[in-house]
Structures are given as structure tokens and as C-alpha cells.
């Protein structure tokens, strides 16, 4: 995938004074980090570490990519370090999705099939409508914030940044089947959240169960 940087510049434009970097790239890096780690304090810390690391290794920046791309590369590694460390402090497991709020029938001949009154509903998102697309993305962003922390780490790496499954498993010290379960759980969470918020938006006044 080709990635564009909104802040293009070449090596001679990079100021020797690092405090100007903070003004120029700080918000951009902060937003990048906030989407991935969600917590403001954590995002601030990884941005600070990124600038500090950039200052220490500025000789290694040769202007092959833009300065902002170079900073983002450092930031990505800091974010992964954060996930690796917080993964160590987490031991909770995520069992197979079910529970009392499940939309599956719990008994009878069609046990574990969708309860037709509570199963997935039609969203009718018009992706050619730019306004509607933006709104869909905004709701998706809100739902992402509601994911449990460990699932959020998985989604950040695997779904937002498209990091290979093997790599994600290594960083979080989990097995592939563990990863599948977590992704499945997370998708169920996100789908349900998105559905209720989206349908309320489309049909105000009709609460969705």
C-alpha cells in the first residue's frame, strides 16, 4: 500500500532545533499514537520517547524518506514496545464469544443459530456518499474505543496496521488460535456497537435492542 505523508519536506528543511519538531510534528504523531493506544497519557509518552530517540539518532536520517515518515517509523516501534510490555502484565483470557447478551438461540432445534429478532440487520451504508462514509468511520472510531484493552491491542496491530499474524502473536506472546478467538470476539463487539449506533443514526427514535 502506498502511504502518503501530509507533511512532505526534504533533509535541508529539517530544523536543527528539536523543539521546533515538537511544534511541527507533535500533534500529527500524537493523533497517530492515540488511535493505536487510545490512552492519552500513553500516547503522550510514546510521542515523547519518539522525539527523544529521534534526537539521539538524527545522524541516521539521510532524507531517503521524509522526516515525518522517519519519525512515524520510530513511533511505530515505540507503540509495539508498549504493547509488548503491557502484554506481559495481562493474563486474562478471552473465552469463546457467548454470554447472556448473545444474539444466538440458547435452546431448541435451532440452538446456536441466530435469533432472528436479534441477529445482524441491514446497515445500508452508501459508500459512494462521502458524508455517509465519514460518519461511518467516525462511529467505527468510537466503537474501537469501547473494545476491551487487550482486544484493542490486537486490533491496533492486526487490523489498523495490518501487521502479520505471526508477528502479532510474538509481540503479545499468544498462540495463533488465541489470536483468532480475540479477533472474532473483537469483531463481534465492533459489529454490534456499530450496528446499534448506525441504525439509531439512520432511524432516530427507533432504539435498537
Amino acid at each position, binding site marked *: 500500500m502506498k502511504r502518503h505523508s501530509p507533511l512532505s519536506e526534504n533533509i535541508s528543511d529539517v530544523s536543527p532545533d528539536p523543539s521546533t519538531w515538537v511544534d511541527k510534528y507533535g500533534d500529527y504523531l500524537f493523533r497517530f499514537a492515540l488511535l493505536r493506544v487510545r490512552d492519552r497519557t500513553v500516547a503522550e509518552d510514546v*510521542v*515523547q520517547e519518539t522525539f527523544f530517540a529521534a534526537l539521539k539518532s538524527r545522524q541516521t536520517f539521510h532524507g531517503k524518506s521524509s522526516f515525518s515518515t522517519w519519525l512515524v517509523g520510530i513511533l511505530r516501534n515505540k507503540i509495539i514496545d508498549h504493547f509488548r510490555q503491557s502484554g506481559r502484565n495481562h493474563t486474562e483470557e478471552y473465552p469463546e464469544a457467548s454470554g447472556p447478551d448473545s444474539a444466538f438461540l440458547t435452546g431448541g432445534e435451532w440452538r446456536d443459530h441466530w435469533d432472528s429478532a436479534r*441477529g445482524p440487520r441491514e446497515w445500508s451504508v452508501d459508500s459512494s456518499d462521502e458524508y455517509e462514509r465519514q460518519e461511518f468511520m467516525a462511529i467505527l472510531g468510537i466503537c474501537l474505543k469501547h473494545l476491551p484493552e487487550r482486544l484493542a491491542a490486537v486490533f491496533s496491530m492486526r487490523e489498523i496496521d495490518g501487521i502479520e499474524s505471526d508477528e502479532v502473536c510474538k509481540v503479545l506472546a499468544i498462540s495463533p488460535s488465541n489470536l483468532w478467538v480475540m479477533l472474532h470476539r473483537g469483531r463481534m463487539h465492533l459489529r454490534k456497537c456499530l450496528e446499534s449506533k448506525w441504525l439509531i443514526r439512520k432511524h432516530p427514535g427507533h432504539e435498537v435492542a
Partner: protein
Amino acid sequence: MKSRKPLQIGTLAPVWLLRKVISCKTAVALASRSLDGALPISERFQLRMHLLVCTMCVRYLSQIRMIRDGLLEMGTISESKNLPGELSNEVRERIKKSLR
């Protein structure tokens, strides 16, 4: 796997049978896994059979695909400029200080 238009439930006896092969709960777990790599052939077959006749699972799969595409797009650099949030002045100063 392409999404197919599901048949009307109840019009054909095999529909009932096909839908019974695996439960919806199993089908959505397989559908999710199918986004993360190829399923083993028998699971792939079971999922396909189920999706032939189950409107809700077809919808589920297309919705989790939308979620996947949306998240990947959110992560692209060009989309980052639309994200909310900015550093507070206090933090900005703190970072500058650490660089001196």
C-alpha cells in the same frame, strides 16, 4: 469467497439441511477466521454451504469485512490528518524540555 445471494428459506427441503450442517455460531467464527487466512478445506466447504442459505450470516460476513476495510483505512497516513486530538501545551513544553 464471493458473497452469494441467499435462497429464500423454506422454499426447498435441502435448504433446511444445508443450514443444519453447522450452526450460525460456528459459521461466524469460521467467517472471521476466513479473513485471517485460508480455512482448512472441510471448514471452508461447511461455511460455503451454510452461507448459501443463511441470509444473516452472509450479512455478518459482509459487515465484518466493512469493519476490516474501515480500520485498515483509518490506519493509513492520509487518514491520520482527520483524526481528533492534539497535545496540550503543558505536554508540548514537557517534551521540548526533555529534548534540551
